[in-house]
Each structure stands twice: as C-alpha cells, then as structure tokens.
C-alpha cells in the first residue's frame, strides 16, 4: 500500500502535521477554480464509489460533501439513519462489514458517538472521512475555517482566534483548536464556564471569561452554535440571558474598535449566539466558509483517493 499524503483516513486534525494541513489547504485552492467552471466537474474520482453514511441529521455538511464528490465525478450513495438497517438496531460494526462487502472505495461518516469514524476506519479497508463524530472532531470544518482565515488574512501564523460559545460539546471547536495551534495561531475560548471543557490550558489555549474581552483580543471569532438541548441540560439558564451575556452583537463588535472577522460553522441561531446584523455584516465570512467547504472536501477526497491500496504503481514519467 502506498500511503496517501494524508494516510488512509481523515479522522481529525489532531493526527495531522502542519505540513499535511497546509497540503490540504493548497490543494483546496486549486479546487476553488473548478467550482467556477462552466462545467463544474473533473474526472479525478471517476469510477470511485463513495458512501455518505449519516447517522445524524445534517443538511449543510452532507450537501457540501455530495457536491464535492459529484464535482470529482465519484459515484455516491447516501445512507441516512431513517429507513436504513441502522434504525433497526444494526451495530456500527455490522454496518461496516456490509459496506466492506459491497467493495466501496470511501465512506464519509457522521455519527453521534465520538470515535465512530476511527472505529469504522479500523475495520474496513476503504478510506474513511470523518464528517463529525460526537463531540470529538469535524476535521473538514476545521480545514475550511483555516482556509477562510487564510483567504482573509493571507496567513494563519500569529493570528488570534477566539472560539466562542459551547466549546464543551463542540467537535468544530476541537478541530479548530488543533488546526489553528498547529499552524501557529493563538487560540482562546470564551463562553460560560459550564460549557468549557477541562484541561484546555494544557493544550496552550487561553480561556477568556467575557465576550467583550474576547472581541478586544481577537483578530477573528468563530462563534459556535448553542444547541437548545444545552438549556434543558441545565448548562445555561435561558437563550435570552445567553444572548445578553455571550451573544455577538453589532454593538459589542463595534466596541472592539477594529475589524474582527466573524465566522460561524452553521446553522446559526440568529438572535442567540449571533445577531443578524453581525452575521450579514461586512466582517462576516460565513458564506465564504460555505464556499470553501466544497473546495476543502474536494481536496480531502482527492488526496485520500490518491493512495488507495488497490491501485498499482505506474511509472511517473508519461507525457
């Protein structure tokens, strides 16, 4: 097996080196152009079969992956929990074995359990791409956030990025922390202490208690979605109070006294963690994030496909 530049699977940014992350970003750069072509399709993954295995509802990520796959000419099958054998109690290991038996080339998996992508990757020969596993990682989101920041600032190194909100339950936050710190950015988290996980300081992440301080400090903020379940879980008292204490509003942003770039992984709760005039304002790069999502996913698919163990080696020189 010839190892691909990323290894067999993309499970998280924790496992990637800074060089590997830069390779994905540079490759994604080339794929941005493909999406601007009259025919938004290249044959790079022609004949490859990809299963999008979504055990959790997701519109944005699934569509983004599907576009990426189709623009690379792969054949794709979507499996969602509803109506599949998964709903009938089939275990993940059985699902994995069945997929393997169907000789697919790649699996994109979204699963509510942390470690599910790794679990699958260890049990099948196909490449596995983690599209979000529990509270662990969402590497393609982390990569697209990096690409968006690099587009805007021309660099990642030395940037100050604050990740704001429900860091405890956020796989996006974890992938961002790994990606940003590996590329030399300074990272802070900001949110109610009840929604910040323990031990982050040992990863070199600074903890900021108040959102105003975070906006003062940061070049860019990544505002996480506050899920309504968190209220029921007793982590925060109400959405109203959350917005008043931690919401990113135009007034707060203005008080920073300089432009602070605003990111959000979506879907947004307007009026909770982010106000509409911030989301739609000049400092927002939320839509470029979405555009970059397709390019980054194309890059990941392409780089992982480059080293499938089934392919024989050919002479490199053949013009």
């Amino acid at each position: 097996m010839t190892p691909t530049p990323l290894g067999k699977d993309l499970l998280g940014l924790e496992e990637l080196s800074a060089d590997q992350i830069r390779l994905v970003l540079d490759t994604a750069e080339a794929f941005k152009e493909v999406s601007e072509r009259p025919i938004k399709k290249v044959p790079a993954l022609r004949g490859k079969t990809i299963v999008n295995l979504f055990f959790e509802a997701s519109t944005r990520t699934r569509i983004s992956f599907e576009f990426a796959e189709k623009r690379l000419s792969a054949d794709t099958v979507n499996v969602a929990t509803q109506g599949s054998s998964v709903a009938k109690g089939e275990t993940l290991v059985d699902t994995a074995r069945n997929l393997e038996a169907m000789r697919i080339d790649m699996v994109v998996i979204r699963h509510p359990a942390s470690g599910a992508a790794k679990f699958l990757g260890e049990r099948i020969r196909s490449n596995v791409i983690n599209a979000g596993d529990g509270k662990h990682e969402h590497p393609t989101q982390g990569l697209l956030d990096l690409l968006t920041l690099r587009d805007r600032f021309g660099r990642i190194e030395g940037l100050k990025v604050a990740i704001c909100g429900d860091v405890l339950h956020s796989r996006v936050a974890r992938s961002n922390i790994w990606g940003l710190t590996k590329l030399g950015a300074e990272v802070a988290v900001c949110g109610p202490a009840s929604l910040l996980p323990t031990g982050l300081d040992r990863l070199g992440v600074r903890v900021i208690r108040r959102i105003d301080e975070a906006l003062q400090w940061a070049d860019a903020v990544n505002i996480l979605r506050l899920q309504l379940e968190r209220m029921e879980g007793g982590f925060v008292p109400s959405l109203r109070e959350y917005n008043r204490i931690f919401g990113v509003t135009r007034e707060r942003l203005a008080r920073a006294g300089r432009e602070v770039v605003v990111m959000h992984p979506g879907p947004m709760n307007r009026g909770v963690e982010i106000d509409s005039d911030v989301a739609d304002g000049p400092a927002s790069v939320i839509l470029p994030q979405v555009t970059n999502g397709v390019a980054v996913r194309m890059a990941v698919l392409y780089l992982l496909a480059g080293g499938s163990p089934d392919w024989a080696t050919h002479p490199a020189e053949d013009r």
Partner: protein
Amino acid sequence: MPTLSRIADERAVARALARMASEVVERCQGVEGLILVGIQRRGVELAERLAVLIEKSEGRQVPLGKLDITLYRDDLQSVGHRPIIGETSLPRTLDGQTVVIVDDVLYSGRTIRAALDELADFGRPSRILLCVLVDRGGRELPIQADVIGLRVATDRDDRVDVRVVERDGEDAVDVVRRG
C-alpha cells in the same frame, strides 16, 4: 551512471521557438480567434514566449490560458508524488476559437489526451492544434503534434528535461540517459 547531453542551448531554443511561432501563425492563417493554452508547468512559460513572438510579428496580442491536467489524468495514484495542482485559467469562452495547446515535451500522449478532455469541459473550440518544443517519440495513444520545435530519439529509460529561464534560470533541453 546516467549521462547528460544538452541537445539544445539557449540560442537553439530561441531559434526553435521563433520557428514554432511563425508556423503557428501560418497554420492558423493569422491570429484571428487564436488562443494559446500552456500546460502546467513549463508549457505555460513556453506559451507566454510564443505569445510575445507572435505579437512582435503580427502586432496583435494573443489571449493566453493555463491548463493543469492533473485532475484529468488516468493514473491518480501518482498524485502521491506530486499532489499540488497548478492553476487553471482560460479565456471566457473557447467556443468557435482556435486553441493551440502548448507543452514542453510530447511522449506517451496521455497528457494531451487529458488536456483534450479538459478543454472539452470548458467549451467547443472550432479547432485544436498541438505545439510542443520537443517530440521524443514513444507514443501510447494516436496523438501527433502539429508544430514541433525539436525531435529527439530516446529510449524508454531516458529522461528529457526542458529548462526555462523563468523557472530554471536558463533555456535548454537536456537528455539524461540512464546507464
């Protein structure tokens, strides 16, 4: 021991390019509707040189394009060695135009096959020509160049290196023979 022999120096390359530029214009009967598309990497620089030469003789600017055919290769496994994809940028429309593909070396023909596929996804030129600095033989596909700067007979194990001043600090064509 590999041996290196220089088959064209700076002046020889300049002469070949001048001849190629006039041949392109001749074959196209002028520069009307002409587009030069260089293939990444060194085809891009060669296309730029040809455009300058054509502009000198014809007094008109020729539109230039760049094409990276990596995503159209039929051997994706080799991305392991060269994963970075170069820029692709083409003029707004290719429909009805005469596209001249410019590349440094023509060998198996697979790159050109990929380039033809890729161009077809950008539009429908009325005519496509192929212009290469070096034809080293050894075709694996029924593809031939229309305009050729130099011909050189090579073995399978040989390597042909085209060097351009923009990238390599000098213009030259070398053949590296193995053993």
